[in-house]
């Protein structure tokens, strides 16, 4: 709008103003020279005005302020992104353990031969049978079945880790072997298969 207004200076209406004789005015009195303190204050205010370009708490009041804000924001974002990528790189770039194939080749299942699987199952079953006998003998949890199962789960967890270490396989493979043994009714140390059921969920009402 201001540019358009400037372009209209040839219109008749503008001419009289241009032809006006300049009014002779008395020369404006010179402002008194600034004192040292005033000069310092002015300098500080000017510095403050330019430093306001770095005042990120308010909206910039000049185009330069906006551009500087945009540039700084982009630069800081770039640093932020690099930092985020840097700190998460180890986590994200590491490949997971390979999946366990579902195919069975000869007597191999879960990448383990049958004799190893049976050995793993026997180890786990031995621990389970012993724990069940102990629970009955000690009448643990006053006969609360789910709590006993919870204890058995703990011993199974420990035994599964031991088996994984002993047979150089993963914990997932150990649990898959246990599931296979229960499903196929492989005999335990007492000659009986392990139970395929679990006492229904029944949390204790007296402790946790």
């Amino acid at each position, binding site marked *: 709008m201001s540019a358009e207004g400037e372009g209209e200076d040839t219109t008749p209406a503008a001419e009289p103003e241009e032809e006006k004789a300049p009014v002779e005015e008395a020369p404006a009195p010179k402002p008194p020279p600034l004192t040292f303190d005033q000069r310092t204050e002015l300098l500080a205010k000017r510095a403050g005005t330019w430093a306001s370009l770095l005042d990120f708490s308010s909206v910039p*009041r000049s185009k330069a302020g906006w551009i500087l804000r945009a540039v700084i924001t982009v630069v800081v974002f770039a640093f932020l992104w690099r930092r985020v990528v840097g700190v998460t790189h180890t986590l994200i770039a590491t490949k997971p353990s390979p999946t366990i194939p579902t195919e069975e080749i000869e007597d191999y299942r879960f990448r383990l031969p049958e004799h190893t699987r049976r050995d793993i199952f026997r180890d786990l079953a031995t621990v389970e049978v012993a724990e069940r006998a102990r629970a009955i003998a000690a009448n643990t949890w006053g006969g609360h079945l789910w709590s006993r199962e919870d204890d058995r789960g703990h011993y199974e967890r420990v035994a599964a880790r031991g088996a994984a270490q002993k047979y150089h396989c993963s914990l997932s493979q150990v649990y898959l072997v246990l599931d296979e043994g229960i499903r196929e009714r492989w005999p335990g140390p007492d000659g009986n298969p392990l139970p395929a059921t679990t006492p*229904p*969920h029944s949390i204790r009402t007296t402790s946790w």
Partner: protein
Amino acid sequence: MVTNMTVRWPDRILALMPLRFLIWIVVAAFTHEGVLSDPWRVADWMDDHQFYSWEQSDRMTLLDYHQLPAWNPWWCGGTVGIAAPEDPFLGPDFILRLIFGVAHGRRLAVILLVTLGFEGMYRLCRRLDSSAIGAGFAAIIFGSCDRFVSYLHDGWVNFMGFELIPFVLYFLVDGVYATGERRTRARLIGGFFVAWIILAAGTYPTPYAMLAVGYVTIALSIHAFFTRRPAAPPPPRKGWRRILDYAESPSLLPWASAITIGVVALGLSAGKMLPTLSFLRQFERVFTPVETHPITEVFGTFWGRYSMVLLLGLVAVVTADAAAGIFFGGAMLFVALEMGDFGPSSPFHYLKSLPIFGQLRFPDRFAVMVLLFSSVAASRGVTRLEDAIPGVVKRAWDALFAWKHRAGKTPAPPYPFAARWVFVAVGALVVYSRLVRPELDALLPGVKIKPGSMYVQEAPRVYAGPFRQSRGNRRDGHMFTSANLGSLYCVLGNPVPESALLRGDLPQEEYPEDPAKATVKRIAWTPNEIRLEVDAKEATTILVNQNWAPQWRSNVGTVRSKEKLLAIDVPAGKQELVVYYADRFLQFCLLISFATFVALAWYLGRALYRAGKRLSDEWQDLPAWPEDPPPPA
């Protein structure tokens, strides 16, 4: 209290949000180094394995089967999915699990929430006129709270919702003291953060956030009643809108802010909160003992690590700082709650008598809130000390020259403009280098999660077999879900029923009750829908090796419970039987959430568009460079 912000130039540099996030991510990477290392591994405690299993099942349900996880067949022989109190599927941070997988997603969610904790606390303290140094101090103290380390160790990522409470309080305060559209925006976004806490399975963060909002609302209301008067009351509205005039009165503004936040949060989180409340009503906790902690234990535990926080809070309180007084009062309230049910007059006893709060346990968890509130007070204490340095210099200047002026020697010169800048910087530098930095240096190593210390257990490996129930083991639940096996041996915090007929050795998961009467063949299996080819010689029952729930339906015959096992009575003949889980109440609640989300996105999107347009319009009139100030008169 928070209407006139003090101008400190170091604060203005830290007003750049990406710069703060850069600082937060550096701090979080230091304090949570162990969270960002040991990829794929899980924590030692069994709850981490259980929640990993749940999140894995949620992820599989959505990405592999393209369904919402209304039902979780991998746990306990089948139980509710989204409605389970600890299920975080609808939480915004669950997106990280969807993108990066559960193992990484859980860790990245922790880092995200910690950085948001830093940022929220910083903003809250700055809103209460704390300096950047004070606000940063409080942010790091609270965001790296020692309790969070133990929560993460136990696998309770959902407890990291505590990190969002400062944001809720920030928007609550901003919804009181801001003006115009910003006030409305603050309340809406505050509602979003409460909803986030709820949706991300904030079993404890949600009620704690409600308590914090309630306390701050009452405190601000009382404070406003005694101190604030509207500068120029607006012209009264007409008709029913007159109610809005009352809502504008200073002592009611906090209530208006809190109620708006609550309504928005309820709308956004309806899809999680209402089904979960229904679940909790149906299966109430059965073990709710009386728990108490003597004051010596509560104080001793806190003092051992956060003595400086307490002292700095006291500095602010004794210098009559209103914000510090309010937040220190909040800390005292939460100390009383942390002491537990020590008698009929104890706050925790009253809390336990309320419907939802009655199921809360472990009052020692209120220590998180004690730290939150005392950190805010401490930020005011740091600020008081920081402001004291330029304040003392200014007073010394005035005193010196006033004396000289009175002595008739020189006219009193004004306090140099540059000195204000210099001594503000000196104040910030001294407080940072002598107080804040040494305290953080001493404290952070104590709450640091070191690599190899937290995620020490082997990661599960994927086995893509067909879905089957197995006997399982709740202590290694994550192993079974990844192998597409359900774990019958399980635990839940609530007494959810489980059928005794469930088995982990069936040749097929869907089978006829009497094999002589029918044959069953699985056509397709998904968590919420099973398609079977049934050839029945006569009317019979088909059993599914999952728990029954009233939401199970079928296209043929009748669904019923056979000793809590899912059973369908079908007529004779060859047919395709579709058994599906349809929770109408959940669907209705999800619809409310979705509608609220769309409305919120529309409002905030419109506000963003208008702000952008306004700035664009103003661009033409902006000067190219900052304008020079007028010369001093």
